[in-house]
């Protein structure tokens, strides 16, 4: 018997009610603010508001793409996101497999907990640690290099070092915590598969290659697609805190530029236009990745 919509709502009312807070949250804090993107097409004046500010069409989009700094900023963001994606994405997978293979459970638990810890540091603290460690005059790294007879490198004022520092500290901070999802996926692998593999004479390495990794591929694919969308969304705080006039050639990314122009400079329309352009590109990335994944394999986001 087919039930009417009303009937089904009545039947599931408790569940729907449970859903309500999350739904409200999304509506209020994710969807309503989206209407704010209209300011990117206006000469937005804070006190005239959205209804009375004059429309200027694509003026601010043109302004961004004709700005000589734009290419450098987009390139920095893209490269940082790409390196992070290529280098930092596999790190938790490898780490999770290593944890999984560890035999001494107590030690494993200890290492795991220690590897989670840096995740709970705020990026402000992390950046201060980096600044202190890497200072060529007072930092430990500089001193260690000196005792080895090397000239201390001025890491934080050299554009060529910024990405290494950024991604290195990212891996240190997030790889441990990132293992959680993969460990959960690993736990779900049927032990019988390993038994069967052993019967067929597979050694540990072969077992990893043919049982463990295929077992977590769906989790990897989902995480992969999700992080593709993040390539262009390099977070603001660390780049801002570690950036200075010395390394700005590589450290100035979209979010730090938007902060300077939009928030410090009060150019709300311009900053919104930049962010919207980036969001569109990110969406294309995710959409393409998902489409490819659906064609090639059977896992996809939607």
């Amino acid at each position: 018997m087919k039930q009417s919509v009303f009937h089904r709502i009545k039947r599931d009312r408790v569940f729907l009610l449970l859903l309500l807070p999350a739904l409200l949250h999304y509506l209020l804090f994710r969807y309503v603010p989206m209407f704010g993107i209209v300011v990117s097409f206006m000469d937005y004046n804070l006190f005239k508001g959205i209804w009375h500010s004059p429309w200027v069409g694509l003026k601010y989009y043109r302004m961004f793409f004709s700005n000589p700094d734009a290419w450098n900023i987009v390139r920095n963001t893209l490269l940082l996101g790409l390196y992070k994606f290529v280098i930092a994405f596999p790190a938790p997978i490898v780490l999770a497999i290593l944890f999984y293979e560890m035999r001494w459970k107590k030690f494993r638990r200890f290492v795991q907990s220690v590897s989670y810890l840096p995740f709970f540091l705020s990026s402000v603290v992390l950046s201060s640690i980096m600044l202190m460690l890497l200072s060529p005059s007072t930092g430990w790294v500089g001193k260690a290099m000196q005792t080895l007879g090397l000239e201390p490198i001025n890491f934080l004022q050299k554009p060529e070092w910024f990405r290494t520092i950024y991604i290195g500290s990212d891996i240190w901070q997030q790889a441990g915590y990132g293992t959680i999802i993969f460990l959960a996926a690993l736990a779900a692998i049927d032990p019988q598969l390993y038994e069967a593999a052993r019967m067929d004479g597979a050694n540990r390495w072969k077992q990893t290659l043919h049982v463990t990794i295929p077992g977590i591929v769906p989790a990897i694919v989902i995480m992969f697609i999700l992080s593709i969308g993040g390539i262009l969304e390099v977070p603001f705080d660390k780049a801002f805190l570690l950036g200075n006039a010395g390394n700005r050639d590589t450290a100035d990314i979209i979010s730090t530029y938007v902060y300077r122009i939009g928030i410090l400079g009060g150019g709300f329309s311009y900053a919104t236009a930049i962010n919207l352009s980036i969001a569109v590109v990110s969406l294309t990335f995710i959409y393409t990745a998902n489409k490819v994944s659906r064609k090639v394999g059977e896992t996809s986001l939607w």
Partner: protein
Amino acid sequence: MNMKAFKLTWAAAAAVALTVSGCGSNNNNEPATSASSSANPSQSAAATASASAALPEPAKIKIFTENNDAWPPKADWGVWKWVKEETNIDVEQVLATGPESLALAVSSGDMPDVLSVFQNDVQKFGPQGAFEDLSKHMDQMPNVKAYLDSHPDVLSRAVSPNGEIFNIYNDGAGDGSQMVWFYRDDIFQKNNLEVPKTWDELYTVSKKLKELYPDSYPFMFRHGLGTLDTFGPSFDIYPEFYQDPADPTKMKFGLEDPNAKTMVEWLNKFVKEKLIPPDWLTMDYKAWTQFMSTNKSFITVQFIGQIEIMNSQLTEGHLKFMPPPIGAGDKPYLPKGGQEGYSLAVASTSKNKDAAYRYLDYIFSEKGKDIQSWGKEGETYTVVDGKRKFNDNYKEANDLRVISGIQTAATYGWFDFNAWLSLVKPGEQESYVEAPKYRFPVAYARPNLTADEASELSTSNDQIWKFWTGEVTKFINGDRPLSEWDAFVKDLGKHDLEKIRTTYQKALDRQIANTK
């Protein structure tokens, strides 16, 4: 059972909703209640009539102020108590937590009633309508009017191209916030070293100090590239745009001057020979104090008040004011100090404008100047032989800020600097006497722009700033050879230099025409 569970969930959800909305309305109510209390004189007057008949009706305003670690703001500072006693206004401080705080306050639509702001803030938000045009309310602020009439320089800085006055600049305490040079005179004496008079001598003396103290960086500063604003006048320039002292009707971009190259050459030499710490660009206050107090640095550039603060922290050794060394030309110069950067504005959205005007009128009055600078007799100072003497709990000038909030942003309008000087030890007074002798002929300031001009330049200013700070850092660090300096100067043109120059030139012409 099912029904019961449903009811429980509903109750919980309702409770959450109530708390949320409760919080929201609580926040919104605050200005509303204070507005109604000032708008409802009969009721409030009755309440205070017994306390003091002469005082106006009570009011409450929020003031946006600095948040300085060296004098953490306190709600029970004397300055706010005296405001309450004199004007019957309760003040609540809203603190700036970062450079973006003001922008966020303005865009949130919930601005504090009175705001302490800088010129560039006013430039950004004034023409958009964030601040009240105070020139229309001078009848409510006779003392502010008198203050402006007696300070034509303050007035000319405050007037916008369209004749509005969005902010009133503070005055009086500028001498306490300028950057100066100082050095360890005990180390110099011990080693028979002469105080350097030129950058050449600064270099030789630093070399000698480096030989004597091999693990030191003899010369150090903590404001990164911002320190060029102080070095510049030694070379007869400021780094970016200012009024050309040779022809005050023209705007000049300092880095185009050949002297800028000399300045950068010197700094490059200092860095190369490790006379300046390699991380000069990112030094903070903590690192600076560490270097200065552990015999790791001997010559420095810092705020004038730091000489005394450091001297009282040094277990051995002594710091002394140093005349700025000459880098080019024949006169030693410091930036033109004496002016204050902080100013006060009233939010256009404020519901307590009358109280805000009353507050401004008080702090810019003679009486307000006296009380907000000195506090009250018996409470903060006593009169000995006709001279005022602060109580013993104020040990050094900075204690005025720490203990009572005296001379902190937005607590005064017009400061009596003698209050500050009276706590500066006799041995430390010298720097305050000496520094004004080295003032550069022009201030490092730009004329006010119209809203259109400012929005035209918003990205250009960022572009040129990003370009020159990056390149100059490379030159100083030796990552780009100085032989390419001329190419750098030429490339400035690719970063909107001419557009910026024409705009400011137009603004300057207008300002000159208006003051004639």
